[in-house]
């Protein structure tokens, strides 16, 4: 396609992965003190506040300098309350999305068309649980507790991504969901690997690397269907018809209507506008759809040579608002299922805590060399069992 030569040509999935690698490398090499030269003054690092504890203005200035230098804020650094609150909200929403996001595909685990597809889908769903756990851990570094975040989810005080409230009606929906919504998630999340908050950036590097497996297995699943019978091709097309707009809506409201965007971009928690990311996603997706022989359900979708981007019809933002507020096709079902799973797991958590309390002798892990790794049971486990 001639647009590949266009200077504004969108990057493909390979380039997105390269961005994750670059962010990972940046994380590993940043902050390294530059060795002083013969003429060095010794002020190799940042200016140090000697002795006296700096006041809030000084702390704020240091915080803003770190952000301006594109370095990372770490958990015990001073940070403005609003920065902390915004991060907790963003990371918790992300973690909840991973956890509740297991449901649409879990519906198909026992009905996958082959053992291979079933094991792949199982691995993907397991990854989503893992992503939720990395993210809850990142949120906890900000001084909140996972149990409280789960309460907020269960009571509807915190949200998860809107697309999860749509049903997976056929097997093809699992493929379309993975190809489109995981593809959108990657476009959204790759820039977060450079978030100004260290623990979040590190978690996102892991998430993005694993997410690309999700994305690709979805594409592969649709590829199999589009190379199958006419009925299978039709099933794939109908699933794409259902998932195209929920995926586009994942990028949120347009920038001018997005309440958190400006400040989050200044803090480098968010690095591109919702509209820029949505455009980037469409630009990546359309050539992939052509390869699959599937057509996104948008009569106005076409390449615009002047802009160097695809023109497309934006999602229905009123629908997005309705679904976020709880009125999507599956909101109540998703949340009820989440609460039930949590309640029905209570006895497992209690039994494990009781077992831990009963065996409070030092435990030696399978790696005897780990002499510096205390593996004794925390006292807190005993309290838990006693409760």
């Amino acid at each position, binding site marked *: 396609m001639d647009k590949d030569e266009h200077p504004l040509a969108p990057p493909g999935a390979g380039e997105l992965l390269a961005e994750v690698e670059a962010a990972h490398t940046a994380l590993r090499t940043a902050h390294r003190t530059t*060795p*002083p*030269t*013969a003429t*060095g*003054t*010794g002020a*190799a*690092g*940042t200016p*140090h*506040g*000697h*002795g006296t504890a*700096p006041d809030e203005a000084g702390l704020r200035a*240091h915080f803003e300098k770190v952000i301006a230098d594109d370095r990372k804020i*770490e*958990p*015990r*650094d*001073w940070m403005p309350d609003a920065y902390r609150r915004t991060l907790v909200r963003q990371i918790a929403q992300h973690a909840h999305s991973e956890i509740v996001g297991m449901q649409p595909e879990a519906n198909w685990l026992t009905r996958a068309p082959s053992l291979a597809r079933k094991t792949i889908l199982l*691995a993907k769903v*397991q990854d989503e649980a*893992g992503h939720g756990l*990395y993210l809850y*851990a990142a949120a*906890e*570094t*900000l*001084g*909140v*507790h*996972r*149990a409280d975040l789960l309460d907020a989810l269960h009571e509807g005080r915190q949200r998860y991504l809107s697309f999860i409230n749509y049903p997976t009606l056929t097997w093809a929906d699992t493929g379309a969901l993975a190809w489109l919504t995981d593809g959108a998630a990657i476009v959204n999340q790759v820039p977060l690997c450079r978030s100004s908050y260290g623990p979040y950036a*590190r*978690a996102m590097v*892991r998430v993005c690397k*694993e997410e690309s497996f999700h994305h690709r297995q979805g594409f592969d699943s649709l590829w199999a269907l589009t190379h199958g019978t006419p009925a299978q091709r039709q099933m794939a097309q109908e699933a794409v018809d259902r998932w195209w707009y929920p995926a586009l809506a994942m990028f949120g409201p347009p920038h001018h209507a997005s309440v958190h965007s400006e400040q989050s971009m200044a803090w480098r928690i968010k690095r591109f506008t919702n509209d820029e990311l949505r455009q980037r996603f469409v630009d990546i997706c359309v050539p992939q759809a052509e390869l699959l022989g599937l057509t996104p359900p948008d009569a106005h979708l076409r390449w615009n040579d002047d802009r160097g981007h695809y023109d497309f019809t934006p999602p229905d933002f009123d629908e997005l608002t309705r679904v976020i507020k709880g009125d999507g096709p599956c909101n109540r079902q998703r949340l009820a299922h989440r609460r039930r799973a949590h309640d029905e797991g209570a006895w497992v*958590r209690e039994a*494990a*805590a009781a077992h*831990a309390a009963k*065996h409070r002798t030092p*435990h030696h*892990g*399978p*790696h005897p*060399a*780990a002499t510096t*790794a*205390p*593996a*004794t*049971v*925390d006292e*807190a*486990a005993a*309290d*838990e069992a006693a*409760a």
Partner: protein
Amino acid sequence: MTGPPAPDARRDWPLWEVFVRARRGLAHTHAGSLHAPDAHLALHHARDLYTRRGEGVSLWVVPAAAITATSPDEKDPFFDPAADKPYRHPAFFALPEGAEHL
């Protein structure tokens, strides 16, 4: 690094920090945190959470509460002793033209 203050133990398991040795010859590196009721399950959870794709050949789990850390950020005078000793780096010394193996 040590995470939040101890959670309400009745509502969640204690927090553990996980260190992974990616392969022989490398040191264990901090990979992240997790909650587990005891060390044994912490190792199992760490395996499932941080080595699903063969990222490690050895794991350490350490109760987060057992970690002693320096105070919040690099501005702390704790690190000052190193700040004014550039001569500890070989690059501090200018070498005359022609000096080799030095």
